[in-house]
């Protein structure tokens, strides 16, 4: 890479990557559940991304690329390896979930229960948590989520479906079945 290309590369990287900083940190904290680990994760993510920026293919999804680096970095950490071994209720390959039959009362949630909702998200198994956050918080498309998590789109859909159901169940438990 020539000097001019390198300079352009670093400038381009900063321009593309720094706007994602807050989102990456939030996601890292959700994954690691620890501030110090989240900071290390984000810092390492940027270092790896900068180093590998030359391999990034222009035109592909940079945001998904960054989140994928972050997620892989997390999975290689001690906390990540531990989280990845926690089994989830149903394997991704299970047939489609039955139609949900919750009553309107069980799925209504108001702002007052945000803390409970956060606790419930935190307790979700990692594969559900990451898929749900990328979809609902990052508002990624299924395609982007598939790229970030390196899984097929069908798996993204089934994980999201299970994550939503598991989350509702956790919230219900925490509110003692009194979700309005």
């Amino acid at each position, binding site marked *: 890479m020539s000097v001019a290309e390198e300079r352009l590369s670093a400038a381009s990287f900063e321009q593309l990557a720094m706007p994602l900083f807050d989102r990456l*940190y939030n996601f890292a904290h959700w994954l690691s559940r620890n501030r110090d680990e*989240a900071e290390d994760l984000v810092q390492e993510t940027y270092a790896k991304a900068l180093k590998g920026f030359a391999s990034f293919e222009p035109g592909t999804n940079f945001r998904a690329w960054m989140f994928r680096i972050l997620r892989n970095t997390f999975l290689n950490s001690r906390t990540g390896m531990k989280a990845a071994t926690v089994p989830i209720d149903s394997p991704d390959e299970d047939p489609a979930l039955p139609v949900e039959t919750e009553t309107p009362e069980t799925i209504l*949630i108001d*702002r007052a229960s945000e803390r409970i*909702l956060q606790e419930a*998200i935190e307790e979700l198994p990692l594969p559900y948590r990451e898929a749900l956050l990328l979809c609902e918080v990052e*508002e990624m498309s*299924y395609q982007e989520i598939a790229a970030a998590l390196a899984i097929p789109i069908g798996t993204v859909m089934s994980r999201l479906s299970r994550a939503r159901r598991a989350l509702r169940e956790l919230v219900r438990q925490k509110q003692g079945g009194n979700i309005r």
Partner: protein
Amino acid sequence: MIHEPWIGKLDAYLDGELASGEMQDLDRHLRECPECAAESLRRVQWKRAIHSAGQRFVADPALRERIRRQISKGDGRRLSWRWWPAFAAPLLLLLLLAGAALLQQNTRRTRNNQLVGELVDLHVSVLASASPADVVSTDRHTVKPWFEGKIPFTFNLPELQGTSFELVGGRVSYLQQSPGAELIFRVRKHQISVFIFQERAVPSDLARNVEIEARSFHLEMFERDGLRYFVIGDAAPEDLRALSELLKHAK
């Protein structure tokens, strides 16, 4: 009552992931079905709640700065190459100046060597000559006046009585096309030539008050009253220094 098959597609619909045809079909159904519309609204509220709750953690601004520096440091690691073009011109100039200085030093050394060589040649020609002096006298009051009108300056000769030095005589000599005085002295059978030239006849960067050995001859140089003295001979260096001291203080 939530209607099949729509309910299974509701999440994908709200996520904006349904194909356009299915999207339009579900839109139409929601407008016609209050139960499915209510379910859709509840799920939208759920999504909003998760979206809000999910934006939970705020990074320390210091971390952002650390990362910015990290990116800059990543650049910094390549700084020497990245800024090579900026440093290239001054560096090249520095190299040229160093080269020029070296060349100048070599040139000066060569010129000095040539000068010393020329003086040695003059001295040797005196040694080889049957009549080395144009004015032959041991009396300084004879030799000094002889140069009047022959060279563009005057000089003083020391009183040698009581020393081991003897004045033999003198002649006009030329260095770099400039006329000067060549005085011939003797010390214990060794002949010493003293060349006196005006400063401007001698390169200004020629080392002063140094002892030089050339072709087994010794050379002492010094400056006095705008004149450059070169004392050369095969006598001992201390003899040359002693004669030099006499010349420096001659009145």
